[in-house]
């Protein structure tokens, strides 16, 4: 095989070695105390991350350290496959093991709603807000990832889920925004910093949980519990998000990275 020194990847390699292209980690640490989504107690629950030491240079294994880990497919920074929701259950290639690998390395648009979310914890992203963003940054290309930047990942403890007696309060997309991104823009998937792709009060929208219902029903993917979105440019970054290849998996915890060109963030 000949060594090709020109071409797109060679240019990328050069840019990465020179530092012109940087890697940003969009992932939370898998920590047993990181919040998971909370459903009414009579439903099945999302298991938090747990680690049990198999051995740690001790009588269980004198020279080595390793752990058995357990968690839900939707714990920590994680990927949602279309099969996660009932609306996507009969789609082809809808589980994490069947999704074409190209979906895991794609350009990403980042819609900054951090100011609005700071003012209104129940902020809903609307088609008008997206169109206003597009006026500045150009139309969202088909096949791109779209991330909602809320700066929610900077919250910690009880303020993250923001759970009250009437449920969680956190931002997300309106049903109309989801329809717009699916029907008018044909995006690849949608990601958030909150515990789910939907708003905290999304059970009361129509349809309930529109991001889950409509995105997954259209074969789109989801990412949630992201962080460091404030380090991404509105357009021009490449998202790298391969989930674990779990047979018939509905999702997966994963490491999410973004390739960012220095100087455009």
């Amino acid at each position: 095989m000949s060594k090709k020194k020109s071409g797109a990847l060679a240019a990328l390699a050069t840019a990465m070695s020179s530092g012109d292209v940087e890697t940003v980690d969009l992932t939370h640490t898998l920590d047993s105390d990181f919040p998971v989504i909370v459903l009414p107690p009579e439903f099945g629950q999302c298991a938090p991350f747990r680690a049990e030491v198999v051995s740690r240079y001790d009588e269980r294994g004198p020279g080595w350290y390793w752990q058995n880990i357990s968690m839900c497919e939707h714990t920590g920074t994680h990927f949602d496959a279309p099969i996660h929701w009932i609306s996507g259950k009969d789609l082809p290639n809808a589980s994490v093991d069947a999704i074409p690998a190209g979906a895991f390395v794609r350009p990403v648009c980042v819609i900054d709603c951090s100011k609005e979310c700071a003012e209104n914890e129940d902020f809903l992203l609307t088609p008008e807000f997206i169109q206003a963003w597009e006026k500045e940054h150009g139309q969202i290309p088909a096949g791109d990832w779209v991330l909602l930047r809320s700066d929610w990942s900077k919250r910690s403890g009880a303020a993250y889920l923001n759970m009250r007696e009437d449920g969680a309060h956190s931002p997300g997309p309106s049903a109309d925004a989801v329809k717009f991104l699916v029907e008018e823009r044909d995006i690849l998937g949608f990601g958030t910093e909150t515990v789910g792709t939907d708003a905290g009060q999304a059970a009361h929208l129509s349809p309930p949980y529109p991001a889950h219902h409509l995105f997954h029903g259209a074969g789109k993917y989801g990412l949630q519990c992201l962080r460091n979105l404030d380090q991404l440019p509105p357009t021009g970054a490449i998202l790298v998000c391969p989930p674990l290849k779990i047979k018939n998996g509905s999702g997966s915890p994963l490491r999410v990275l973004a390739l960012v060109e220095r100087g455009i963030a």
Partner: protein
Amino acid sequence: MTELLQRPPKKDPQKRTVLPTSPPSARSRKAIAFSTAAAEGRLALQICAECDHVIYPARELCPKCWSMDLQWQDIPDGGELITETTLRTSANTYFRERMPWRIGTVRLDAGPMVLAHIHGDVGEYERVTMIARTDKSGQGVLMALPEKETANMADDKQLRALTCDPRHRRVLVTDGRTQLGQCTVNALANAGASKIFVGIARAWRPYDGSAELAAVSGVEIMPLDITDTISVNELAAEIGGKTDILINTAEHVRPGSAMQRHGILTARDEMETNYFGLMRLIQAFGPGMRGRGADGDNSACAWVNLLSVYALSNWSVFGTTTASQAAAYSLSQCLRGEFAGSGVKVVNVLFGPLEDSWRQPLPPPKVTPKRLADAIVHALRQGIENVTLGPVAEDIVRRFRDDPFVLERELMQAQQGQAV
């Protein structure tokens, strides 16, 4: 009157911790029933079924009529102190370390003359109230108390060796999110616990009563999730060396039998809290407490497990929860064996259905969280190891004593819609 016990001073970090030693523990097989009753706070002696002679100490046959039909029965607790002496030396290490020590002879109203520990406020020839309790060796002993309550009576050194009084002690309550946990904290504060560490899992989830809980005197809220080994170990690393009493209030209860369950996840959650949670606590806190069983006036003294009475025999309405509680009960017995000789008592409270959301549709009588909390503190103050609480629990335990296999069949028939 007894001298008021003052709050123990801070420990001298240059001194080695005094290791637990035991009073004599040898007993005959016949005498085990005396210790078993004492662990429940009952004073029971053998009574001859043929001639009604009350027998002490325990024997194989009646010394009066030679009958072998001897029945253990609770006897009246009154008596009179006949002679008393104060020991100032002993060949036994445990007593040597605790001299002087009062012992004496008491004539029980029930008949026998018995050798007993004597409370400091009891005078010669006075009427006394007898208690049977387990001592630091885990065996039943008798102690003569003043017939009428005296000032600071519970602070008597010899009595405090038999009890697990929370006063001046530091207590860990493993789950403060529930009403049960919060009632327990209040009862401990009222009993004079010097510090109450309260475990809160998933602090990112709000819970009822959190503000009131944090305001209770002596309370320190600690992150603790007993389903998470890392969390349990981190807390033990912080407070394991000053946890004198551990009360495990965490439980995971869900209605449903094995075939009513869809998959094993609920059963696994039950095991994670009720069985593995206890296991994690034992591994993290057990060794430290076992080593501190003689560590001064605020020594480690008690480990409290709260168990559904159906741990004794499965009730399929809560079938898989019950199975996990049976596992926890079995593990508590293992813990008793491991704590033997340490001076730390394992207190098991078997309770009937609790008044809480997961048992809400069950009919009364139910045990309120406050009643359970009060029963815990009462058991600690009294030094009682086995508590049965509530009419349902009392009924189940009575039938369990009669015949566990009959009880199993009765509970099975209850599931089939027949009255128990």
